[in-house]
């Protein structure tokens, strides 16, 4: 029997009109720092969505594990002896102690430090001390670790979904996979994570990062002005609004992507030839491959909190740019705070020297010390602060996401766009962000109650 917690049924009033607001390009600011919204998100979004957990290359061997959050709950992601990946709640079934206290490592079993219940790396309960004396009728098979009912691995990315009734990952991603393939499946070896992720705390709501990667191109010229000044990124990649390089794809089965490209050129995000020669045109459609080839920058968010950025940049104007891929999760830590997790990847086939170089360039631009990221995370907390004001509540303050909406722009979507979704050839729009909030609202106001069978 399950008694749903009351928090699952509290839908703040101000969400009622949000569908209409969104059509006008408005979003209630309270979304960015509100306890009720937050609790509901944990239950309706994070407990039901396909959430990124880890990259396959973080777990090369059986017994390799990392600990990762889903929403704010602690899970272990471990590679089993058969190579399968398990996503296990980091909580002993006996009396709730934390069974895995390291953040990563390799193990043969998870033995609880409290009373010694011992679990196989697939989560099954292997044994309990004093079984003969105290647990004669304990069914070990009923007391394995709680595990995510669904785990999917796509192009090296491991996702989990806690909802037993979840749609399959392929269906969840839908046609957005067309774009993901370009980032993650261009070479036979796929992408590879370099080292451990950066983790750091920012006093902003998790959606602030997630929306940013949906195509908030108009912030680049202002937020990142100091980085642009020191000449570490090409003007085209930086997305000046007057340029023709920008492309925003929105409403692609609920997701969006921002693209900067230079048609006619061979760019591949500034990967050098020693890398690009491993890119295999047969692994993608011709249109996908052609897009990759002419691309300077790709960034997008797979709802809810997994984002990627594919980019060529340098860390010193005197050195050439290098391509790299960053993936990140925006982990909620209460309504007004998030922990950012950031990984840097390159194609697996890249030479070791290039991997190190790509890491440096990635770290120098998008990481806690990144010349770009530093300024993003500095401006974001302002929105959380605005969201927590009494003024916002009393005046029902709404933010403006109208850039490029309807007649705000006279730039029409591309008619002949070869990819899925609606592609607008402009940096001056917030359509990707509107897509994010449409998806968010749909998931938050879904009518079927959360699954609640006891385990």
């Amino acid at each position, binding site marked *: 029997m399950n008694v749903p917690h009351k928090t699952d049924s509290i839908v703040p009033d101000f969400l009622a009109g949000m569908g209409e607001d969104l059509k006008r390009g408005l979003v209630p600011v309270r979304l960015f720092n509100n306890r009720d919204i937050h609790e509901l998100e944990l239950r309706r979004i994070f407990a039901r969505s396909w959430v990124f957990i880890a990259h396959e290359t973080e777990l090369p061997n059986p017994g390799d594990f990392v600990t990762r959050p889903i929403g704010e709950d602690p899970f272990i992601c471990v590679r089993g002896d058969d190579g399968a990946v398990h996503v296990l709640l980091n909580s002993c079934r006996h009396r709730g102690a934390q069974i895995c206290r390291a*953040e990563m*490592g390799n193990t043969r079993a998870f033995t609880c430090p409290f009373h010694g219940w011992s679990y196989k790396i697939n989560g099954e309960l292997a044994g309990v001390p004093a079984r003969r004396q105290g647990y004669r009728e304990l069914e070990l098979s009923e007391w394995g670790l709680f595990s995510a009912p669904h785990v999917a691995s796509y192009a090296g990315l491991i996702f989990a979904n806690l909802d037993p009734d979840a749609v399959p990952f392929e269906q969840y991603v839908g046609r957005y996979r067309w774009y993901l393939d370009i980032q993650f499946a261009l070479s036979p070896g796929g992408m590879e994570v*370099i080292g451990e992720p*950066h983790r750091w705390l920012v006093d902003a709501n998790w959606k602030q990062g997630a929306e940013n990667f949906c195509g908030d191109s108009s912030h680049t010229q202002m937020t990142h002005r100091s980085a642009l000044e020191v000449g570490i990124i090409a003007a085209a990649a930086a997305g000046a609004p007057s340029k023709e390089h920008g492309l925003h794809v929105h409403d692609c089965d609920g997701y969006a992507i921002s693209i900067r490209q230079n048609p006619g050129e061979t760019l591949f995000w500034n990967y050098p030839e020693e890398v690009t020669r491993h890119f295999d045109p047969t692994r993608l459609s011709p249109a996908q491959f052609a897009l990759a080839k002419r691309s300077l920058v790709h960034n997008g968010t797979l709802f809810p909190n997994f984002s990627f950025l594919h980019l060529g940049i340098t860390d010193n104007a005197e050195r050439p740019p290098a391509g790299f891929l960053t993936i990140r999760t925006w982990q909620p830590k209460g309504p007004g705070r998030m922990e950012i997790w950031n990984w840097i990847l390159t194609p697996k086939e890249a030479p070791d020297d290039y991997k190190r170089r790509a890491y440096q360039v990635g770290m120098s631009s998008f990481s806690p010390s990144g010349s770009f990221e530093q*300024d993003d995370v500095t401006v974001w907390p302002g929105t959380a602060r605005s969201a927590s004001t009494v003024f916002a509540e009393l005046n029902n303050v709404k933010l403006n996401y109208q850039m490029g909406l309807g007649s705000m722009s006279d730039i029409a979507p591309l008619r002949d766009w070869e990819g899925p979704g609606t592609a607008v050839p402009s940096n001056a729009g917030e359509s990707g962000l509107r897509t994010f909030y449409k998806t968010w609202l749909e998931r938050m106001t879904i009518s079927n109650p959360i699954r609640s069978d006891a385990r």
Partner: protein
Amino acid sequence: MNAPFDAGTEAEATRFLNREAELLDNREFHRWLEMVSANIRYRVPVRTTRQNKEGRGFSEKAFFLDEDHGTLKTRVLRLDSEFAWSENPATRTRRIIGNIRVRSATADTVALASNLAIFCYRGDAAAPIILTAERQDILGRENSAWKLADRLVLLDTTVLGMESLSIFL
């Protein structure tokens, strides 16, 4: 407890580190760069919590900073801009350099370790965000002046508690 190196070396190294800290606290980054060798290797590895038997958790591949002189200079140039929002208004920092230990010294090289605590304040926050680390440095004498030739900053934290690492360590 015999003195492996003469007290003068310790005193010189101490003055070097104190002066460096002062320049950084005062945001005199260009003058700081003058204390840094053109051949500097400057690294701050990522750390993870590991079982004791798996070591101290410092990454060999992942870094918060992995710099040479050119990238440090690029960072300094960026901070010159009034649009470097993460540092305008600037973080107010206070460095305490403690437990300076000379490990080896020649006429032209000193290897030393020190413990660093940085107290960081932004805006109205009354309580500092604290970052602590061991630093392992090599100073080299260049044209009769000491320069920072190598720095490895071993952080004590695995998760950074500050929104950005926009200061030097």
